[in-house]
């Protein structure tokens, strides 16, 4: 996953004609399965010898969002198991928090 991220960043920077990457801005949903500490750890290992060697990795978390199909309320779930805080229903649709994307790069020419 982190290798994908780094490859994507390096190829986008090359497309932009940049010599080096100074900052990598990543958005991580709470439900994406990605663990920020792990991404940071692997990024530090993998960036060596690349144009991102000196880049800061900036990870922004997006909270989980659920929609209750019963009472139509939208909420951020607390701990598992998930239940609607308003009506107690288990009929819940995941509406946010599964995002995992490279938002932008800051580069130097």
């Amino acid at each position, binding site marked *: 996953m982190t290798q994908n*991220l780094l490859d994507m960043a390096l190829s986008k920077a090359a497309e932009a004609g940049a010599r080096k990457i100074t900052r990598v801005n990543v958005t991580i949903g709470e439900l994406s399965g990605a663990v920020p500490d792990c991404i940071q750890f692997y990024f530090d290992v993998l960036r060596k010898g690349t144009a991102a060697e000196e880049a800061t990795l900036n990870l922004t978390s997006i909270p989980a969002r659920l929609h209750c199909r019963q009472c139509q309320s939208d909420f951020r779930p607390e701990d598992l198991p998930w239940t609607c805080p308003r009506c107690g229903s*288990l009929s819940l649709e995941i509406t946010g928090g599964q995002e995992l994307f490279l938002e932008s790069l800051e580069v130097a020419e």
Partner: protein
Amino acid sequence: MKVRVLQDIMSANEAIAGHNRELFDRHRVLCVNLMSSPGAGKTSLIEATIKALKDRLAIGVIEGDLATTIDSDRIEKTGARVLQINTGGGCSLDANMVSLALEKFPLKDLDLLFIENIGNLICPAGNALGEHRRAVILSLPEGDDKPAKYPIMFAGADCVLLNKIDLAPHLDFDTAVVRRTVTGLNPKVKIFEVSAKSGQGLEAWCSWLIAERRKRLK
């Protein structure tokens, strides 16, 4: 200078998964990704399904494991075409591993391909392989709280098999709790109560597979 990207980090995997799926479609093979905890009975279910459907569907199996060929050796005994992938510690198969396996695994003459994923209820949920359908197996001894604890896995399933249903009289597993939680997250899911060991409930599962395979032929 800022460069806007807005690209999914898993897009490389998604692209390869798309190629895998095209390959399945070209060969008119239904591909089912089987996921569960270790020991839920993925391999036993595959063995029982091959036995039940051997006169109706030609079934192939790609076996994922961290190491060992224990599972593929078992499948080989059924006479089905099988290939082992060892991830060497990786907690999920990904589309590229499957793509490389498919280079050595002819789909010609197959109707149905099972991909047995690595045993856990977390990582495989986030890695598309190119499958048409996702089946999650939950065995009764694991407890009826698993869908509540691993909602992402169950929210993304096309069907859930409650395996080892023959043990129900000996356990406190409440199938109604599981049905409520799983259908709450995933209203369209099919739930089958089965025992790979006794054969109980396998007919409904096999009929579902046959119906799904038929849809691929249209």
